[in-house]
């Protein structure tokens, strides 16, 4: 009632004052010249205020020459002293919490950040360009607060485990959906269905997403925020926006990154490994060229780059060439085109990993050839020669050609209405090939010298094509104190994934063609599906400080057709900005508590079952030159998508005029009807069937803080830190027996009711005082590969034109398996203190637990320093010149004797679940030292 009276009195006051008042107007823009929608313009120490419209314009009736306070979450509040003129255009400076409160271009058409009831993390171009890394997952590592990115191997271009909050599904990979300029692209981040047996190294489709010309990256964390993104978005969505150019004369940017890689030897068991395999520095070089410009009607941005990463050994190498063209044009006054196209050619050579006896690192680290410290000089010399011979004969290559294009037309026929149509595709074709020559087999000791008929050739070709068609509509209007943002639209995706594997035997030495072999066999995998859906979303604002939103999504997939039909998903949320209340603007309050907003929401997201897993099928297999039928998928007519329900609440705060920023979110996610593929009863003789029997819970807190310790014209010192906690549990498995999702039979990653997803299971030994094996608990809980918590830290320090920055990340409360030492144990070489002497002869099945270690780590990902040469000393031709030095992965600390980040076992099946936690037989991410020169003309 008080509020109503206040409103009434305001109306009365305003009416009375009308005769003497005048109208102040203007536009509020951000530093990029984009209008800020919904910014508050308030007459100081009064409740007289307004908000900017969709074009950033405002009008406010005032008396005399008051002070206006313009505020917008994420930006420094600005005061305007009204003078004689009536028009005041303001450009607002960004506040400290860059990644919390800016306008985002989210679903289809952009929406004011302030209106969003969920959090969206953002990494800006400036942050991205600071680290001269080659792949998007490396670039984002330790920058997406709230998201953990673990690179599973130091080999260039291999898979990573990307995860936010906790694992939500036992049926799928945790890699988020990746969208470039509105077009969904291949996010295969692990082994493809068919693959060449290189011992666990799986190439990742993330390795050939060009990282230059990225304007910004948004990460929409899983849960409520992803409801409208539809199927498979439950793990979150990475949205990449590329540069389309800015108007003005052409600007040319040139960048060179020149440096070297050295091995991260902290986790090597034997110093000799480094000496024998990873001695010396290997080249890393990258060259980039960019041209940017345009007129007021059309802009363009072109970039091209060449990368050469020699890894850390004699074999691993990556060569990559890419270019991207982004453009935008005003076709008519209300019709705009924007588009981007990129082509990437990637070439890798790879060494074998530990999952095969061909692995060179495995031969030493797993002591297959004895204890290196006991080698005589002549043994070492002959071993070195043999390892070199193995390297010279290793021939595993991968070639990727990828073309991605995204094209949008945006139509604004009248004020407040926007229609955006997007069409694009991602065509990724990769060929992995392994040539096993007789010479290789002899060098590996696999066949006797002189063998000439064992050569083989194995090749997998994968053709992936994904098309995206999207239409998004938005209507924004205001009615009194209320503002409405109404959205609707739909997407259609078509994925075609064709894989062919050809294996040839008795390959003629020196050849790489199937025609030069004795016999060939073919395996094939094909899947095609169309999926997509429709959504409607309403966001209602009240007085620009309270927002309520709700949405619905209908999602379908042609692999299930009418059987499942459309799945309906709902979300609802609210956010309230306390500091937009007039009483918070008074006095000293706003200087102490500059901003405080609270949010709460509920949302559903879903993962579809594996395509065709509903049907009862017969599989036809090749067998001894005939076609052989076998029982395929048993079929499950009740199969439906799993649904992740999220409840989140939290707040965003900034103190001391933005010097301290904090964002906190409590989340509680429950995956209902979780898709498990538990074992069938052996007596049925049927394959395991996907079924909706599980329930998985993830709860935790996400906390991010930023501190601006020093801020003046010469010095800046900013520090940031984040933590995400997670408690993951399989609440129910619907009575299904536990099942293995990775690792080994004797010590594997399993899914069982009451345990975390992918917990480590094996024999848990108990030793008596003399070190004798007293008892063993078979199939016991040995650890959890998913951390209890993880986060990142960063520090930026600027003195005039010199900037120093560092970032790192950590995890705690996870466990992992030192598989290398299991293998060493077979060779009679044991890590000191791991197994009591009296139990050395026990079965390793019973000893399993001794190889599980705590896998906490803290890693500094980057230490860099950059110097921006002052414009005053630059020749006229230069617009800018900077020089930087980066030390990538300079320091690692871990509680485990192996690198807790790597997992030589890879990810078992295409798109399959992996908890990681099996550290063996692959090299850690290299230390890399890079000198960067950037010049613009």
């Amino acid at each position, binding site marked *: 009632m008080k509020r109503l009276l206040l409103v009434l009195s305001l109306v009365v006051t305003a009416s009375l004052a009308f005769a003497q008042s005048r109208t102040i107007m203007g536009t509020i823009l951000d530093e990029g010249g984009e209008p800020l929608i919904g910014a508050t313009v308030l007459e100081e120490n009064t409740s007289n205020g307004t908000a900017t419209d969709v074009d950033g314009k405002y009008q406010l009736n005032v008396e005399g020459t008051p002070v206006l306070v313009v505020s917008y979450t994420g930006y420094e509040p600005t005061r305007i002293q009204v003078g004689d003129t009536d028009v005041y255009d303001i450009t607002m400076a960004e506040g400290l919490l860059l990644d919390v409160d800016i306008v985002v271009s989210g679903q289809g058409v952009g929406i004011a950040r302030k209106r969003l009831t969920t959090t969206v993390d953002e990494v800006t171009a400036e942050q991205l360009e600071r680290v001269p890394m080659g792949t998007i997952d490396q670039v984002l590592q330790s920058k997406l607060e709230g998201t953990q990115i673990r690179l599973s191997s130091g080999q260039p271009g291999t898979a990573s485990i990307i995860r936010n909050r906790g694992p939500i599904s036992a049926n799928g990979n945790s890699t988020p959906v990746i969208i470039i300029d509105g077009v969904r692209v291949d996010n295969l981040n692990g082994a493809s269905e068919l693959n060449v047996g290189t011992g666990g190294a799986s190439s990742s489709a993330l390795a050939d997403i060009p990282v230059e010309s990225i304007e910004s990256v948004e990460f929409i964390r899983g849960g409520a925020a992803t409801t409208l993104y539809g199927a498979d978005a439950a793990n979150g969505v990475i949205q990449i926006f590329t540069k389309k150019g800015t108007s003005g004369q052409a600007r040319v940017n040139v960048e060179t990154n020149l440096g070297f890689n050295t091995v991260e030897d902290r986790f090597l068991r034997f110093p000799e490994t480094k000496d024998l395999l990873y001695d010396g520095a290997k080249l890393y070089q990258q060259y980039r060229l960019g041209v940017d410009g345009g007129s007021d009607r*059309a802009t*363009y941005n072109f970039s091209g780059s060449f990368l050469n990463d020699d890894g850390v050994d004699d074999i691993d190498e990556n060569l990559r060439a890419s270019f991207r063209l982004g*453009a*935008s044009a005003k076709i008519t006054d209300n019709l705009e085109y924007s*588009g981007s196209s990129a082509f990437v050619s990637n070439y890798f050579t790879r060494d074998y990993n530990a999952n095969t*006896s061909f692995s060179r690192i495995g031969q030493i680290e797993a002591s297959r050839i004895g204890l290196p410290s006991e080698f005589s000089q002549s043994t070492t010399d002959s071993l070195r020669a043999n390892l070199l011979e193995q390297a010279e004969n290793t021939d595993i290559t991968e070639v990727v050609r990828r073309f991605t*294009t995204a*094209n949008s037309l945006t139509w604004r026929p009248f004020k407040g209405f926007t229609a955006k149509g997007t*069409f694009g*595709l991602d065509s990724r074709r990769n060929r992995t090939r392994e040539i096993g020559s007789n010479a290789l087999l002899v060098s590996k*000791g*696999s*066949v*006797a010298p002189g063998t000439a*008929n*064992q050569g083989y050739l194995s090749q997998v070709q994968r053709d992936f094509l994904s*098309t995206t068609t999207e239409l998004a509509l938005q209507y924004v209007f205001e009615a009194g104190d209320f503002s409405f943002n109404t959205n609707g639209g739909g997407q259609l995706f*078509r994925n075609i994934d064709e894989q062919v594997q050809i294996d040839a*035997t008795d390959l003629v030495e020196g050849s790489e063609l199937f025609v030069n072999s*004795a*016999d060939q066999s073919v395996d*094939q995998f*094909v*899947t*095609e*599906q169309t999926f997509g859906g429709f959504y409607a979303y309403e966001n209602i604002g009240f007085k620009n400080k309270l927002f309520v939103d709700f949405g619905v999504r209908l999602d379908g997939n*042609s*692999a299930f*057709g009418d059987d499942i039909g459309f799945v309906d998903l709902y979300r609802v949320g609210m956010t309230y900005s306390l500091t937009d209340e007039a009483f918070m603007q008074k006095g000293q309050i706003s200087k102490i508590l500059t901003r405080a907003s609270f949010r709460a929401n509920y949302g559903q997201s879903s993962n579809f079952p594996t*395509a065709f897993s509903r049907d*009862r*099928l*017969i599989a*036809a*297999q*090749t*067998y*001894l030159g005939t076609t*052989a*039928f076998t*029982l*395929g998928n048993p079929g499950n007519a009740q199969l439906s998508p799993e649904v992740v329900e999220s409840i989140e609440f939290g707040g965003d705060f900034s103190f001391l005029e933005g010097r301290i920023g904090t964002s906190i979110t409590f989340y509680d996610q429950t995956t209902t009807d979780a898709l498990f593929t538990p074992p069938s*009863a*052996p*007596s*049925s*003789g*049927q394959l395991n069937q996907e079924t909706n029997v599980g329930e998985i819970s993830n709860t935790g807190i996400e906390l991010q803080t930023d501190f601006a310790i020093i801020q003046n014209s010469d010095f800046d010192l900013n520090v940031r830190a984040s933590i995400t906690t997670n408690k993951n549990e399989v609440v129910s498995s619907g009575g*299904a*027996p536990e099942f*293995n999702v990775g690792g080994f*039979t*004797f010590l594997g990653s399993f899914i069982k009711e009451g345990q975390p997803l992918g917990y480590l299971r094996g024999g848990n030994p108990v030793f008596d005082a003399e070190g004798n094996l007293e008892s063993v608990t*078979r199939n016991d809980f040995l650890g959890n590969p998913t951390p209890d918590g993880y986060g990142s830290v960063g520090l930026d320090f600027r003195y005039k034109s010199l900037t120093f920055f560092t970032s790192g990340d950590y995890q705690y409360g996870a466990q992992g398996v030192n598989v290398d030492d299991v293998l060493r144990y*077979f*060779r*009679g070489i044991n890590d000191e203190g791991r197994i009591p002497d009296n139990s050395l002869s026990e*079965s*390793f099945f*019973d000893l399993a637990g001794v190889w599980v270690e705590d896998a906490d780590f803290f890693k500094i990902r980057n230490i860099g320093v950059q110097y921006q040469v002052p414009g005053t000393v630059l020749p006229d031709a230069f617009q800018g010149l900077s020089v930087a030095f980066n030390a990538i992965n300079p320091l690692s600390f871990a509680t485990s004797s192996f690198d807790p980040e790597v997992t030589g076992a890879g990810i078992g099946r295409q798109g399959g679940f992996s908890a990681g936690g099996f550290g063996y037989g692959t090299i850690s991410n290299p230390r890399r030292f890079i000198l960067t020169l950037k010049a613009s003309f």
Partner: protein
Amino acid sequence: MSIRKIAFSLALIAGSLVACEAPEDFFEPRNPDLAVDAVLGTVSSSTRLLNGCERQLAFAYQEILPIAEIASDNYQNTQTFFNQFLDALNIDFTDNDLNDTAFDIQRLRALANLGINDIGPGDETTTADQTASFYFFRGISQLLAGSYFRSIPVEANGALGSQSDLYALAIADFDTALGQATEAATINSILLARARAKRAAGDCTGAVADAQTLLSNDGAFVRYVMFDAINGPENILQNALFDRGTFDDLQPLPTLDFLDPKYNNIIDPTTDFNVPYLKAEEAHLIIAEGHLASGDVGSAKTVMTNLVALVDSRETATFSDANEQRSQVAPGSRPDTTSVVVSAGPNRPFRSGLVLDRNNGDDVTIPVISGTSVRGTYLNDLTGVEATLEALYLMRQEIFIAEGRRVIDLGIAFVPSENELLLNDNVNMEDVQPILPSFIEANQANMDAFTYDAATGEATVTVNFNELIVQNRTSEFVAPCF
């Protein structure tokens, strides 16, 4: 070029790339597998399903062979990822290998059932011999299930059947099969399989009759489990014994050294060695055992002598086995030269010629179907039922090495797995407890044990299990003819 033209061109390129498929297929999903309805009633579907049964049998043997050989006294699992529990005869219902073995055996039954009930009747080209073959494969599945498991469901999620229940089901299927079979190979396969099932069920007379019919039909009969080294399933035991060189080591009992590795890859790289799972040797062994059961040592020895002739007529492989090492982890711990003499037990004489030298640069010659050391004077000098029966079981051990048969002769059988327990209401906790013959349990720790003195070149096997079988021949677990 204006931006408008660029946009148009890009849209055109994008459009043409998508146009690689027919527009009407846009919403059509494509699945690499076939719906059941698309297969039923098609011509040659029986032929293809029989190929599938043959293939499934190979999958079953992939599971059976490593664990059966490891669980027996044939091979010691020195340091491999193959089953470690069973090397010490720890039969545990949570052991995944037991689950996988049961699964693949019973999957063969599921496939054969599909042939008998659906595919066979639906395919108008199905022949009587093909119908017989479906019954044969179902019988084989029941025979394998009964041979390796103390009890196992007799049908999908069904009640448990004892070993004798399963042998009876197998014999019934073989009877049906024999009634329809028209081709010699099918008939002979059924005869020998039924002979084995009858012997296992204790019907020695019936077994001997089938064995004799088989020998009169084809005295050199062999039927193989066929592996496909290219497309799979491959011969896993070949992998363990030979292909992986020193990486995975299964080491034979010193008395069996001359028979290892039965599977090697000298044929050519595209072919794995097949496993002779039904061979005429077994018919001789059954007949000889029949004679001994009735106390006729002379006739038994005659059959055994004939058997040696058959064994000697079988092919061998000569190849370099230099990559395999006997003593790699602990040098000198295992016999590895021809000069070593081995005794089958503490009270048995040392015999020479049982150990080969693999690292002297010479090729070795190994029997790939069957081999035996029971011959010549050793065979001629046998007197009495007990000594002859012990020699007969040694022959069985040698002839069937790497075929997964030894555990059955030892009376060892596995239990239903944890998954069956959890998913099948007919299985209770007491059903998954292992039952070992007492004389095996007493020597559980010494399954592969032997002593070896490298200086004297003498190796002695700790426990002579063939002797134990003979001593306990009236036990329900072993020597079913006694």
